[in-house]
């Protein structure tokens, strides 16, 4: 039934494209700097809402990696973050007035923008609290990675989400604008992840980490997915299906080796758990705009009310990518 399934998925992909096109009506240009882009530029695509405090470091981090242009979708921020982004020289900003949930958590908006602008470019789709780590990221710019991927005929690059957390109460140390969030949230779980494979889309489904350990003990199957494929050499006919967890055509989800070897992979440091988190969780809960009927945020809001300490004595303190490589969270694969 291989051919039939492939055809069904192809139709599904077309449907996502149509949907993206329909949802694109909710987008209005705030600042369009796309005339600056050059043929080999590497792009970042991101959706945000009320993340003004995080944006300065976000832009700095990815500029330092060598990203050339940012495509930002501002989902009704009222904290000035949209204006800040629009004032940056290498950022194009769109405003989205529609529902976050109905745009499938921003995926439709970004699918549309990627289809329109990113054909033939390496694109990185990340949230403002996600920081991309790849092998040799301290000595080689992101273009070294994309050049190598090109030379090796690899179209997509996986990076697991790694939840970072502080030691002690989340609100103990306030986060300052422009600060590296990993100075506060510098701890992570090194070895409690579970993996299973989606046989239709071929993507992995990874769960675990502090969120599973603290908030989803009783219903582990509900714990959030951590597998992501954020870096893709984009082509017009690609489409993300569910956040960056799944992508079509499904061959792009094969970022892992099944015959015993290791493919190269990275990490997305997820600096969600800062002092801003409690407020955010409450706000998201009241908006009801998140995945699975905001189930995730309900669990957080309940858990957070008791000011839990995500830290335990077996937590690891983040040092650099080599540490993550040795711990087996990411791999250099064939790249040396």
């Amino acid at each position: 039934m291989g051919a039939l399934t492939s055809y069904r998925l192809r139709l599904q992909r077309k449907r996502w494209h149509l949907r993206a096109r329909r949802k694109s009506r909710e987008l209005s240009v705030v600042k369009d700097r796309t005339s600056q882009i050059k043929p080999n530029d590497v792009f970042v695509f991101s959706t945000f809402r009320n993340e003004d405090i995080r944006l300065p470091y976000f832009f700095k981090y990815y500029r330092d990696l060598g990203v050339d242009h940012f495509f930002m979708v501002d989902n009704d921020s009222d904290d000035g973050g949209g204006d800040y982004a629009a004032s940056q020289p290498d950022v194009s900003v769109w405003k989205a007035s529609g529902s976050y949930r109905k745009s499938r958590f921003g995926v439709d908006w970004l699918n549309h923008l990627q289809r329109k602008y990113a054909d033939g470019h390496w694109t990185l789709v990340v949230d403002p609290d996600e920081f991309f780590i790849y092998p040799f990221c301290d000595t080689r710019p992101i273009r070294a990675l994309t050049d190598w991927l090109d030379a090796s005929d690899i179209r997509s690059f996986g990076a697991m989400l790694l939840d970072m957390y502080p030691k002690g109460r989340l609100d103990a140390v306030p986060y300052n604008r422009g600060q590296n969030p990993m100075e506060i949230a510098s701890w992570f779980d090194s070895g409690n992840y579970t993996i299973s494979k989606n046989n239709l889309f071929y993507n992995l489904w990874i769960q675990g980490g502090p969120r599973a350990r603290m908030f989803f003990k009783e219903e582990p199957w509900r714990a959030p997915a951590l597998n992501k494929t954020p870096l893709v050499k984009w082509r017009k006919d690609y489409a993300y299906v569910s956040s960056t967890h799944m992508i079509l055509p499904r061959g792009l989800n094969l970022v892992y080796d099944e015959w015993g070897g290791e493919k190269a992979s990275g990490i997305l440091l997820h600096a969600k758990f800062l002092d801003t988190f409690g407020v955010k969780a409450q706000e998201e809960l009241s908006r009801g705009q998140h995945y699975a009927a905001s189930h995730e945020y309900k669990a957080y809001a309940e858990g957070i009310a008791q000011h839990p300490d995500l830290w335990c004595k077996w937590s690891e303190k983040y040092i650099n990518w080599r540490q993550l490589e040795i711990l087996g969270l990411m791999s250099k694969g064939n790249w040396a």
Partner: protein
Amino acid sequence: MNVGVVILVHNAFDRAEQVVRHWSAGGCPVVIHVDKNVKRAAHDDFVKSLADVPNVLFSKRHRCEWGTWGLVAASQSASAMMLAKFPDVRHVFLASGSCLPLRPIKDLQVYLAKRPRTDFIESATTADVPWTQGGLDFERFTLRFPFSWRKHRFLFDRYVEFQRRFKMFRRVPEGIVPHMGSQWWCLTRQTLSAILEDPDRKVYDTYFRRVWIPDESYFQTLVRLYSQSIESRSLTLSKFDYQGKPHIFYDDHLQLLRRSDCFVARKIWPDANRLYDNFLNEEYPLKGAEPNPGKIDRIFSKAVERRTRGRAGLFMQSRLPRPGHENGFTSSPYSVFEGFSELFEDFEPWLARMTGTRVHGHLYAKDGVEFEGRQTTFSGALCDNPKLRDHHAQLFLVNLIWNTRGERQCFQFGPNDSQHVSWDLAKDPNAQISVISGAWAIPLFQSNRNFSDIRADAAELQRLESEHLNALRSPFVKARIRIWTLAEFIETPMEALQTVLDEMGAKNLRRVTEAPKMADLTGFGQFLQNLKNQGMHPYLMGDFPADNVSVNERPTRRKPYLVR
């Protein structure tokens, strides 16, 4: 006498220009071949940029695609030009635009001047090297390859199959033996001109035109006809990955490259500014040393190994081996004890004392993971919650063993525990499993419960353990397994324990001096008889006499004394 450099360029012209200037400044004449696929404007700019450099010529352009004849044709016409235009050249060095000289040009000139008759070219017969990709070794010389491997893989493969099927083999021209090797060589004028001016060149060219990847075999084969002295190695440091693609060098390889003492390295990433700045601008002392790429070799062969075999016992986002391809389900040996902590009251602390390993309780206990010291979390931030554990019971074990690399783990297991990993344990070569079958009856015997409940439990536990034992006795077993019945075990408990500990290979291997405390089994035989009388036949513990026997006491022996 001098060294002439032939450079094949197809992109990164600014870097190529830098390198050409460097060669030229070192006194080497340079002939450049620019790929015909390059646009005219780019080509003209490149030519213009080098207009002020002396002794630089451009040769006739050919279309160069990977693995095709074009690369050989390019090398031929460029080297012919070199030999004709620069009569004082003795060695011709073939390089690419992404090659970077690592040692002073003078060093290379001196090195070659000392070896005036030596040809440096890697050249080996196909039967003797495992280099080839795609399963084509000798066949690359006997089949035809009209389709591009990169662009039309499907047609390529089908046509190869077709030729094999109908035995459409080509004949290798008389007098040559196919050899292959790295395409980057350094040949003497005598050898090179002999190859280029060979009266049979037309025959060879026609033949090699249809060989697969002729740039790795044309010169490598023909050099065997004429060379007086072949050093079968390339002076260019060039490493290949498992797909036959060249590894690329970056800024962080600077120290490695410097220490390698190789003359030229490829391929360099065009944006590796530090490498270009360092090697092209700085003055290094002449060393005269032999190239020594050993350390670089190790790094790259490790990378290949990681990509093809991976780290044993690691399951992660980019390594999810299918069953049977794990190359080790877990990362290191561990021990599983079944029935020991039921029979002995203080088994865990005793085992920890005797072996110095990490001893857990029942990791798969239904009401919670019993980590050592009953901690709520353990290495890698594993959690003691049984639902989280059973969400993926196999990976829980794999993670635990991976997280504690370098320290042997021991844990208890039994029919009271969740049984998801039963088969995984049996099939894991790293597992050492010791079983006292039927020992689960001891806690029942000691418990203060109604006999009908005990009977029901006993029946269920016996069923579970017998299923587990079936797994341990199946033909798929890879673990090291010892099974005693309870009755067998208590006959000679110390010997049995000693065997198990010996197998663990504990470091401070000495006789077990101190015994763990065995549970009081007085009346146990009668307990089993009662179960039997209720119609539930406990058979896993072996033959226990119904009357009371003293089980764990050895007959006290009198002290031997000597009679003189």
